[in-house]
């Protein structure tokens, strides 16, 4: 138990901050994913075949390639890409991107592919009559989307989005390969310096279980809130 003490003698405070880091990365990645979903869901629903093809390539490639490979791409390629863009604007100094941004972005792109599929499915399963009714009521495009379609989409999407959240949360453990000090990385450091990997990795597992358990409870509340009236 003294291994988990706070302060200089134990790893308690380090693991606590690492847990906060995992939560921060997961939430950031989830939001990045939502941004991607916001762009790609309309593209997926578009009637234009070419636009459709682009959106389908994104979701197929990201969901068919291992997460670790995507992270390596961003980890090794991210700096180069940013420096290339900067050089176009005439900035040639070395740019260092921090591990948090690289990681959150890589996981965000993965999470975005799953979110896109969830939103697509949810919008497609809304009854056609709802769209027609909104038209008949004379709502404009924004009113139709925000007052009629979005609330119904959210109700249908939340159970699946909670799955995406779980996947995203667990995927953040892979960012440890880039050196970002989240739960997994901190456990690796602690295990290395105390020679007690069994304890620290098991403790990491407990922390992840706790995170998934608590987030499930919170999401269940949201689900109840958004299915009022059903």
């Amino acid at each position, binding site marked *: 138990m003294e291994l988990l003490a706070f302060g200089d003698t134990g790893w308690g405070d380090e693991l606590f901050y690492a847990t906060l880091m995992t939560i921060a990365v997961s939430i950031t990645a989830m939001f990045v994913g939502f941004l991607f979903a916001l762009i790609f869901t309309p593209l997926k629903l578009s009637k234009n075949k070419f636009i459709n093809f682009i959106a389908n390539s994104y979701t197929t490639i990201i969901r068919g390639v*291992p997460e*670790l490979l995507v992270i390596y791409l961003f980890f090794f*390629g991210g700096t*180069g890409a940013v420096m290339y863009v900067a050089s176009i604007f005439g900035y040639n100094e070395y740019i260092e991107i921090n591990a948090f941004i690289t990681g959150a972005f890589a996981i965000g792109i993965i999470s975005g592919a799953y979110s896109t599929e969830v939103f697509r499915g949810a919008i497609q399963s809304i009854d056609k009559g709802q769209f027609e009714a909104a038209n008949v009521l004379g709502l404009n495009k924004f009113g139709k989307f925000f007052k009629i379609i979005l609330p119904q989409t959210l109700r249908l999407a939340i159970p699946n989005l909670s799955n995406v959240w779980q996947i995203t949360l667990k995927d953040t453990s892979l960012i440890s390969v880039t050196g970002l000090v989240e739960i997994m990385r901190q456990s690796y450091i602690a295990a290395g310096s105390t020679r007690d990997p069994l304890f620290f990795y098991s403790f990491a597992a407990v922390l992840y279980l706790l995170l998934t358990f608590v987030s499930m409870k919170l999401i269940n509340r949201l689900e109840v809130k958004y299915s009022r009236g059903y």
Partner: protein
Amino acid sequence: MDIELMINSFPKLLSASVITLKLLSVSLIIGLFIGLFFAILRLNKNIFINKFAYCYSYIFRGTPLLVQIFIIYFGLGQIEYLRSTILWVILKEPYWCAIIAFALNTGAYTSEILRSAFQTIKPGLIEAGKSLGISNKIIFYKIQIPIAIRQSLPAYGNEIILMMKGTSLASTVTLMDLTGVAKYIISTTFKPVEVFIVAGGIYLFMTFIIHNVIKYLEKKYSFSQ
């Protein structure tokens, strides 16, 4: 774009994908048995057996695969007692550690897939079997299992693809699978995009094959539905 590097690295990556496929197939076969075993426990009416199976699947589905591999590969070696038993022959090999982790992980997901498949079987079909005087064992093997297989095929297909992506984590315990070799080439040449295209292409190709095989099986087993 360095086309030459892409062409040169292709055979290396292709031969590494053999290890990926080996890891995948062995862990899927073991995982299927684990999954079936725990699915049957989940359907048991005894609350302790039931809860035990539930805890197993909850723990393995609620923690990242990376943690599971690290516990098995780095953690278990720490127990002095294990080192003296015959199990150590297996546990000192990263290859088998990865397979144990993958099998336990996919077993947890498979048990959930099979459980829900068993639960969606209409009770009428089992009752029909009983009224025909067929024994419970034969009802299980000849009625419940074939229907459950059909029911669980789409979800199991997804699980195979997820597991294929999961095998990439074997590279974190020194195994040179497709991702491991890809990372090695990236870190020696610093050309991530080219290597990603080739390695990703191989992964996508495997996903494509698995997807179509499952689709074919779904059609084949769809009886009169």
